[in-house]
């Protein structure tokens, strides 16, 4: 029982982090067709922002990081991406790769290569169903999931979200409907990457800060986005849950290294079985299938 609670809690805290990452990456991928390989570096920017403005109270510092993230992503979109969309996925992927190098090296130039840390604003632990768990992790997981929930509500329940979904489905059609695509694109990129910055800011007290810190987050975020049928914005969040659950389950029962290998192997199998991504509308999917000639 106790180990089950522990497993649940560690999955929850991973899920909160990955959901923020994957939602941001999924937005950028779905809307712009950009594989943001610099996503992890935006996490790094968020974490270092928390380190740099040490004097500012923690919640306010998160806000500062977010503002910084918005500015950085708008600049990126404007200076690098805007002219590259038409050249397809490879061009934008490479551009973001270049940006990742630049961000890492800038961080190294400004903060040095020595690991840094950020003090946690919430100390101590709380008891959850008989298990002691760090209070800060719980707070962060809940805050992250709340942000994700708000984002999803905006996407699915507001007219802004409708426009967003419309322009994901068909950019030309959206333009006809009077949605300025350029604003929409810049806005989506800003929101998507700022979510990564926010994730980095929130996670900073549990991380060792180094300029290369973001590299490790690219793969799980990427998997979360792509393991579920793309196109829907809730998909990446579900994907994050799959990745978090798979990762904490494997690492619960196997050594870390073997768990890593199994994690990748499981992904390959998952994709081989469901090359178009997991579908969350299984009932309908299977009913259309059954109609096929035998």
């Amino acid at each position, binding site marked *: 029982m106790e180990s089950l609670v522990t497993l649940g809690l560690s999955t929850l805290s991973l899920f909160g982090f990955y959901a923020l990452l994957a939602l941001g990456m999924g937005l950028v991928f779905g809307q712009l067709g950009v*594989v943001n390989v610099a996503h992890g570096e935006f996490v790094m920017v968020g974490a270092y922002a928390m380190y740099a403005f040490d004097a500012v109270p923690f919640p306010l510092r998160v806000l500062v990081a977010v503002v910084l993230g918005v500015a950085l992503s708008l600049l990126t979109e404007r200076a690098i991406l805007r002219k590259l969309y038409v050249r397809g996925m*490879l*061009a934008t992927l490479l551009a973001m*790769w270049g940006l990742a190098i630049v961000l890492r*090296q800038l961080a190294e*130039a400004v903060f040095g290569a020595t690991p840094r840390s950020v003090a946690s604003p919430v100390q101590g632990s709380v008891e959850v169903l008989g298990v002691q768990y760090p209070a800060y992790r719980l707070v962060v997981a809940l805050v992250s999931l709340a942000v994700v929930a708000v984002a999803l509500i905006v996407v699915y329940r507001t007219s802004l979200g409708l426009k967003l979904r419309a322009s994901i489905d068909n950019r030309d059609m959206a333009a006809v409907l009077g949605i300025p695509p350029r604003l929409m694109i810049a806005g989506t990129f800003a929101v998507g990457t700022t979510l990564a910055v926010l994730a980095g800011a929130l996670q900073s007290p549990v991380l060792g800060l180094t300029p290369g810190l973001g590299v490790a987050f690219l793969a799980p975020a990427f*998997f979360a986005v792509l393991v579920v049928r793309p196109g829907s914005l809730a998909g990446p969040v579900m994907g994050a849950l799959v990745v978090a659950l798979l990762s904490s389950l494997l690492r619960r029962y196997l050594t870390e290294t073997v768990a890593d290998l199994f994690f*990748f192997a499981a992904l390959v199998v998952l994709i081989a079985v469901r090359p178009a991504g997991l579908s969350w509308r299984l009932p309908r999917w299977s009913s259309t299938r059954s109609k096929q000639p035998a």
Partner: protein
Amino acid sequence: MIAALRRRVGRGHALALVGAALALAAAPFLLLPYPLTLLTLALVYGLFAFGLDIAWGRAGVVSIGHAAFFGLGAYGAAIASARDIPVLLGVAGGVVAALVLALVIGLAGLGRRALASTMAVLTLALTLAVSQGARSWTGLTNGSNGLVVLSDSGVVGTYYRTAGIVLGTVVVVWLIVLRGSLGRRFVAIRLNQQRAEHLGIDPWRTKLIALLISAGISALAGAVAAPVIGLISPSISGIVMSTEVLVWLAVGGLGTITGAFLGAGLVTIGNQLLGDVIGSWYLLMMGVLFLLVVRFAPEGLVGVVRSVIRRPLREKAAGGAVLAGTGAPPPDRSTATAGGPVLRARDVEKDFGPVPVIQGIDLDVAAGEVVCLIGPNGAGKTTFLAVLAGEHVPERGRVWIAGRDVTARPAHERARMGLGRMFQIPSVFLELTPAQNLALARAEGVHPPAPLALYDRFTSTDDMLAKDLPLADRRALELAMALSWGPEILLLDEPAAGLSHEDSVALARTLREVAERTGCTLVAVEHDMEIVRELADRVVVLADGRILVEGSMDEVSAHDEVRRAYLGVA
């Protein structure tokens, strides 16, 4: 044999080859030992980039984890040298391992239902898994401390061996793959997969072959690199190496041999130079430079050079592939059957989600017959055509071509049986010239007829791209491609849309004439009643996903329900 070689190797190529061989042979006499080792490294990295280019640049197969293959080759050589196994055996083992992994990844990620992004995830997982495996399987790989590979042939010997293998591999792959029918098919599926399929090219198989060749070359590059690198450790197959090779290709120029080697060489040598000059800032500089290249020179340095020396448009468009066929008569795949219908559909149903579009259509088309499908918008004409062509799998019902059940067969297999296809929006290779479009179609032809004089204007148009043609010409080009490809059955979706009245009538006459001359069966969706009258042996009227009535034009137009449902007459 000689003739085939002539077709593939131009005088320019021979000169370039001799030049490259001479330059490579002379390098040790001009360069000091250290620059020579740097050049050796640049050459193997160039081969690696060339390998990736086969998949990404030529066939459009995404891979962001190619270092996995490179690393397998390198480990093959390293393990052999550490355990006193013959090196060739180790190299072969590494290459085979790479091919097996590529096959597994390709079968999973290049299937019909797979998305383009699927390959990205799979290859990323692959590179992470292989490098983690190398780190963990310490008994075989010595873990993070790696395996030492000593080169016993000295700087110059290592250089000559490396240069020989690199040059040989590139020449062989270029001659057999890139200049052969595979190279042509790579171009076709990269530029327009839909059209390629309907020319009978299997896109998945072609991509899988591209991935296999690419993985094999990359593994070979890794094996050759092992003694040059000196120590093989898990980072050799890691994510950094995987992305570095992308950078080389992007900087040099995708889809060109020169680009792969130029990119790898410049970055490898530039790394050293910049590192010397600006110290630890050079990585930042590299990042910025790289961003500038991607942003302002999307076709890489080769693209920049090309825009200066202005080569003919057609050379750039073909990307080094020979688009024309051998001219030899292809094997006869005649689908003609004695008597029975050449095309047959029974009880076909197709839904889009909850919306039923086709609700049970039966149709038989005899050989040589010209059938027109008409009906109001939303009647399901285009969808039915797509079901016949193999683009949509019907929910129920069966389709036969020449007596063979093809219901579960993909489009390219139906094309191989002689089923040609024209689309409502013309589907041609926009990035090729009209002459190249025609040449490619003939080269892939089932049994191409003698060239029609009618299309001389396309065969002679070799100085502009198809995308610059007006819509009507593009449609004519598509028809020209379909006909010179030599179909048994041709499916046409509104061939006269967007044409002037005179042109439409002329087109209808041409089609009629072709059908009569070649015995080709035509199934056309058409709105223009005058054309239908000109063309059709039989008219089939669809409404609400069902056949309302069929018969000659006169019979059909006399039918009350048709007048009501379609012609709008009360």
